[in-house]
């Protein structure tokens, strides 16, 4: 895998060089990247307290630079641009979004979503269009009136990523409540990870159902409505979006726990086509905060929390479980299948995908708490 990846990287570097030559900007592409590697080189992005974005080279597992994020630590949401150059960070108690050039920490985008007496919260919902031109958030506004609060309709806010440091939405469209993670697809639509999985057209606000969850059609006396939730990495390394869920199958009367089966499940969306696969994956045996797919085999999932685990969803079996040194919230994977497990505390734990054994560690200056751990493929 690594070999193939290098060839691919070399090809991409070549392409970038060609563009650079044609534009006459630079003879050396790495100069414009401030010493960082282009060609799809993978940089791990995360946020730690007090409020810093960290750019980590996955080849050396060293922190390349740390950018100060304005405002109070939010939830640590990070979204890389498709060219890997810009990292958009949710900050200031879930309210603001700041975009940084990861090659020099320059802030190139900023939006303050709250205004006057309207407080706007975005619950980890941050996405960038596949061409990098638009940024999307889900806004959950409440208005403070003189002696009461007004709960307002949530909306998709569309920003122009070139709008600079005082960006305002160029379009807004009403959406459902309870939306957390969102992601853009090649169809131009944005996946809304909420009570059901929906896709919204950010040009006209049209919404279609991708995968029913809260409103699924299964008989209530056979299945419990799924508890679907996602805050973290969801599969950009393989161009997919996973919304994990937990459900109970009643084999006896509803509520008869003796006969019941407890299941993990997922709705998995192909970002290239918008196709959805909804399935129960493996029996629920322990808590997992999020799942990612093995780039080499889409039947293999990895999950993390108190354990790092490996699952075969075709066989519906857990293949391996590794006890972690402490609780982690989050995991991601590079193209060479190295697993990075992070969140909660101040260290990222690095693991082998075959044995799940720990093979390295990255120490950060502060706790990651709920922060995302995303991968930028720097072009």
């Amino acid at each position, binding site marked *: 895998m690594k070999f193939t990846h290098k060839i691919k990287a070399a090809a991409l570097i070549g392409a970038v060089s060609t563009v650079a030559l044609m534009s006459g900007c630079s003879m050396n592409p790495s100069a414009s990247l401030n010493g960082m590697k282009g060609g799809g080189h993978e940089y791990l992005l995360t946020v730690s307290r007090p409020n810093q974005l960290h750019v980590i080279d996955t080849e050396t597992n060293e922190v390349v630079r740390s950018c100060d994020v304005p405002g109070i630590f939010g939830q640590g949401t990070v979204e890389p641009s498709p060219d890997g150059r810009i990292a958009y960070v949710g900050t200031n108690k879930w309210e603001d979004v700041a975009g940084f050039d990861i090659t020099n920490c320059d802030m190139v985008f900023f939006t303050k979503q709250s205004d006057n007496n309207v407080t706007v919260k975005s*619950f980890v919902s941050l996405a960038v269009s596949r061409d990098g031109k638009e940024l999307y958030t889900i806004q959950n506004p409440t208005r403070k009136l*003189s002696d*009461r*609060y007004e709960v307002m309709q949530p909306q998709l806010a569309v920003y122009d990523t070139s709008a600079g440091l005082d960006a305002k939405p160029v379009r807004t469209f009403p959406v459902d409540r*309870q939306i*957390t993670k969102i992601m853009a697809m090649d169809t131009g639509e944005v996946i809304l990870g909420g009570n059901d999985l929906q896709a919204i057209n950010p040009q006209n606000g049209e919404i279609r159902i991708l995968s029913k969850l*809260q409103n699924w059609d299964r008989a209530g006396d056979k299945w419990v409505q799924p*508890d679907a939730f996602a805050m973290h990495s969801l599969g950009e390394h393989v161009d997919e979006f996973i919304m994990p869920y937990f459900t109970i199958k009643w084999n006896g009367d509803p509520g008869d726990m003796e006969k019941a089966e407890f299941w993990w499940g997922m709705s998995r969306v192909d970002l290239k086509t918008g196709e959805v696969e909804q399935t129960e994956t493996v029996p629920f045996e322990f808590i997992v905060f999020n799942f990612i797919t093995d780039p080499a085999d889409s039947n293999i999932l990895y999950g993390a929390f108190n354990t790092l685990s490996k699952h075969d969803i075709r066989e519906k079996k857990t293949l391996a479980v590794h006890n972690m040194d*402490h609780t982690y919230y989050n995991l991601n994977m590079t193209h060479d299948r190295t697993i990075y497990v992070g969140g909660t505390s101040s260290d990222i734990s690095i693991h082998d995908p075959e044995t799940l054994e720990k093979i390295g560690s990255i120490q950060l200056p502060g706790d990651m708490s709920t922060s995302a751990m995303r991968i930028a493929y720097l072009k």
Partner: protein
Amino acid sequence: MNNNKSKHALLSVSALALIGAMLTPAVSWATDGETVIQEKCLSCHTRTGNPDAPYSRISEQRKTPEGWQMTLHRMQLRNGLVLSSEETQAVIRYLSDEQGLAPSETAPFRYVLEQKPNIVEDVDPAYAEMCSRCHSNARFGLQRRTEGEWKELVNTHMAIHPTTELHALARDRRWYDIALNETAPKLAMDYAFNDAAWKKWQTMARPALQGSWSVSGFMPGKGDYSAILTAVKIADDKYSVTMIGHYSDGSELRGNGTANVFSGYEWRAGLMLDGVSVRQVLAASEDGSSLTGRMYQSAHDEIGGDLNAVSGNAIVGLSPSALKQGETSRVTISGAYLKGSVNLGAGVKVLKVLSRDADRIVVEAKASASAAVGMRDVSVGGTKAKALLAVYDSVATIQVSPPQSLARIGGNGGKIPKVQSTYRALAFSAGADGKPGTDDDMRLGYMPASWSLKPQNEVAEEDRDLEFAGTIDSNGIFTPGDTGLNPQRKMSTNNVGMLKVVASVKDGNNTIEGESDLLVAVPSYIKRAIQ
């Protein structure tokens, strides 16, 4: 700056504000709560023009004094309200008196006002997941609102705690729609603003609480006590309080302080008792003949116990409250100014009066070997108490009280102290059928026990909870472990754990054991007047 200071005081001692009034002079009550509302609250709230509900939001809610205190705290913290301590007290008093709860309305939930730990509530399923996954039932059960106000409360949740609808047990349903359109209307029915009980209570004569009271109670680490509580009126609904008495081991109990009475019956007193700051949260009976509730340490509200007071001279308690057939024992009869001979009922002989004090009589008594098993009335001179003393053949079962409990790790240099938990052994005999656990079992009262701990289950055993989670002393007081990561534990976890508390009670040559579950949990970082 003043605003910041008052916020800090409220934050750090939120539950104290009501009792803090004792520090302000009696003349402070001259501050009129309604005037303060008009001057300070109407910069945001509005006059409605409706004489039945003159102020927007405020006039369509009824709460306990603690409930109003929390409201004012939130207004100061979030909405820029600036009130002096005197003004705060005046507003709490005015609203508690004019828009409070009747005794019958607070009766099901008094434990939360009393800061009584380890209560397991039986919650209506309609509220269990919508409200009680975060709050006690008492938190909303001690409020009365119109439907519109219950709906505004839902909106306040959405604005102040916007992730409420994303929690587990919220994100699997349309939480906001359900809260607004199903839960709020039900709350308006079950906890209605317009309720006959409050209207009736407002017209009733308020109990007179001045005078002397016969008191019995229990304090962990000290044991049973008896005392005379004297209340001297110093202003309307404000009393100077003294308590003088004895613990069951003979040591003296002495304290004094001040009590405020809200809504005509809610007694809130702060005393220095033997050098320790304590509080009393009591309810006066409607006829003013008794005060019942709990007294606890101000700094550790889990260290406290029931307190019962009866007006004038009365027998209010017996320690111990059971004698074994053929046994000779020292018995303390609690009650103020008891005069005359002591009678403990058929088959029980008072061998000797060991001491007589204003608050109690201590006797040596023997139950004859042939004394019939059962309850006895107790009398001293002409003062009588029904079914106070049990004569028993043998102890059949021991219940550890409370049956389920929670302690919290803390200390270790951090800001949050440890929360202990305290236990008592409650004994029963088998009754006429000879079978324990049946309806005719006879309650013998609390008995001395030796205390120990064991793991609650296999996980607790494997995680060595017994080693880390805490220790229990000879008084049945459990002290949890230090807070913070513990590198000696699996995953460097903190000192939480699942234990069983075991009481061993000697009955002749037998030892009877009882046990209860204890969860040693993480610190609670937010302390509210009503949890």
